[in-house]
């Protein structure tokens, strides 16, 4: 990969670097952009600034230990990453997870999804020039963080899912606090709509920007809201339900336009769907064990195990190859951010440079997820 500095090429095009430290990339990502005037000709992402080789690290950790490191990948949906890993290990162990643990897991997943989407909403609005939504978003996210802190013990990197269930039982205040939050947040989504969604300036900024067709999105491997904004059903919770999602009644939001505004709308509707899932479960948490009995030392049989979950950004896959020992022979994570980033060059070509943050914002990139 050729490394180009700020320069004009021979045909008069300008090459500029956005990042590695740039407020709009929300992390250490480096984009080399070739411009003709204000029009983008090419976007080349350079990765590796926050590479921690988590996959290699996991090869030396036991099946209980490696789960915590996945919280550090997509730190905004760390619960769901942990969930995917726990599912893969349980597949190998042939452990039946208790009903209570399943419900707790789904509740935590949906709360994480809301927290992640709310943060995305604030950060994306800030990227396109509205500063106030960021503070509104953080106010609501703080309530979820408090709930997490009380039950899981941490605000961001919880490490709450363990093979066989969850680490602790729910805190006695959990149900009450979640109900309060759900009631409070329903009014706040309407505020979000007034502030940003119905704002004509915002709509003009997002519509027909970064359009991707359904066929292209599939071939780039995009998942999650990026693919659903093109009208392709791709929710893993519907396609391959795990941990009781098949019993729940929720909709998969779809849009057809495929532009930045469609991706925005899909995420806003997902917020409401997550709230309805929490509503269905919060009164029906079954009694019983929160963790299945597992051996002190976990050993997976020889073979390959794959599990996939739907994170806030798309499909997250965990692929474990076991040789029968204490540690995995090889672990691979399929992270949604990496695949979603790969379509950036395709959607940015021919657009103006000012729209680049609108496209990156609605792709919802989390850099440590791209660069494991």
């Amino acid at each position, binding site marked *: 990969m050729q490394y180009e500095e700020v320069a004009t090429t021979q045909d008069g095009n300008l090459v500029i670097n956005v990042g590695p430290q740039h407020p709009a990339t929300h992390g250490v990502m480096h984009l080399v952009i070739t411009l003709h005037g204000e029009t983008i000709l090419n976007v080349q992402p350079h990765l590796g600034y926050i590479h921690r080789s988590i996959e290699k690290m996991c090869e030396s950790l036991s099946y*209980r*230990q490696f789960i915590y490191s996945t919280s550090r990948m997509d730190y905004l949906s760390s619960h769901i990453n942990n969930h995917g890993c726990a599912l893969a290990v349980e597949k190998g162990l042939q452990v039946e997870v208790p009903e209570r643990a399943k419900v707790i897991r789904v509740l935590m997943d949906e709360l994480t999804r809301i927290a992640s989407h709310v943060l995305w909403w604030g950060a994306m609005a800030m990227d396109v020039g509205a500063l106030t939504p960021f503070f509104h978003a953080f106010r609501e996210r703080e309530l979820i963080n408090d709930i997490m802190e*009380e039950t899981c013990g941490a605000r961001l990197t919880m490490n709450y899912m363990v093979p066989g269930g969850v680490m602790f039982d729910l805190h006695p205040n959990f149900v009450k606090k979640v109900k309060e939050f759900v009631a409070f947040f329903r009014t706040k989504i309407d505020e979000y709509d007034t502030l940003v969604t*119905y704002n004509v300036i915002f709509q003009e900024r997002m519509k027909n920007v970064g359009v991707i067709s359904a066929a292209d999105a599939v071939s780039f491997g995009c998942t999650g809201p990026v693919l659903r904004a093109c009208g392709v059903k791709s929710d893993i919770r519907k396609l391959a339900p795990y941990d009781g999602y098949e019993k729940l009644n929720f909709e998969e939001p779809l849009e057809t336009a495929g532009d930045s505004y469609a991706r925005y709308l899909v995420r806003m509707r997902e917020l409401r769907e997550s709230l309805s899932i929490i509503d269905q479960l919060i009164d029906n948490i079954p009694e019983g064990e929160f963790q299945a009995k597992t051996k002190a030392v976990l050993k997976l049989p020889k073979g390959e195990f794959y599990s996939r979950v739907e994170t806030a950004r798309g499909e997250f896959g965990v692929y474990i190859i076991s040789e029968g020992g204490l540690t995995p022979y090889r672990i691979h994570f399929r992270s949604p951010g990496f695949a979603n980033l790969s379509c950036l060059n395709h959607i940015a070509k021919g657009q103006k440079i000012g729209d680049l943050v609108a496209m990156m914002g609605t792709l919802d990139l989390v850099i440590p997820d791209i660069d494991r």
Partner: protein
Amino acid sequence: MFIVDYIKTVYNASTSLLKGMRMTGYYFFNHKEIITLQYPDVKQELPERFRGEVVMTHDEKNEHRCTGCTACELACPNATIKIVTKQELQPDGKKKKALETFVYHLELCTMCNLCIVACPTDAIKMAQTFEHSVFDRNQLTKKLNAPGSKLMEGVE
């Protein structure tokens, strides 16, 4: 027709902007819904399960519950814990393994809680402290068992 469209767009944009500004005005006059705390003057009370750092519990007789079984050391993914044991002479003349030093590297710890779960005797727990910054990183390597402490009666 272009001029009519243009004026319409300007009108729509400014009304939607005003709707947003009305909300900003609402919070300007309703301070009580603002939730920020004036840290460090006001500190939030942290929940019981909050994971700040690993500490060892001692009772009033300066006795701990750690037998030196190294279950936490094996459970730790980052080699944060190092347990040094010694052979202690029992009253009946037999030798028994006992804890000499519980070394805890706070600078390596990720607060994953796996050591607490692994401990068979509930000797260690998570403390609710979070202000860990020091000028010298050597200060982050801690000895958890208090000087002169010994194993509690009846803990195996």
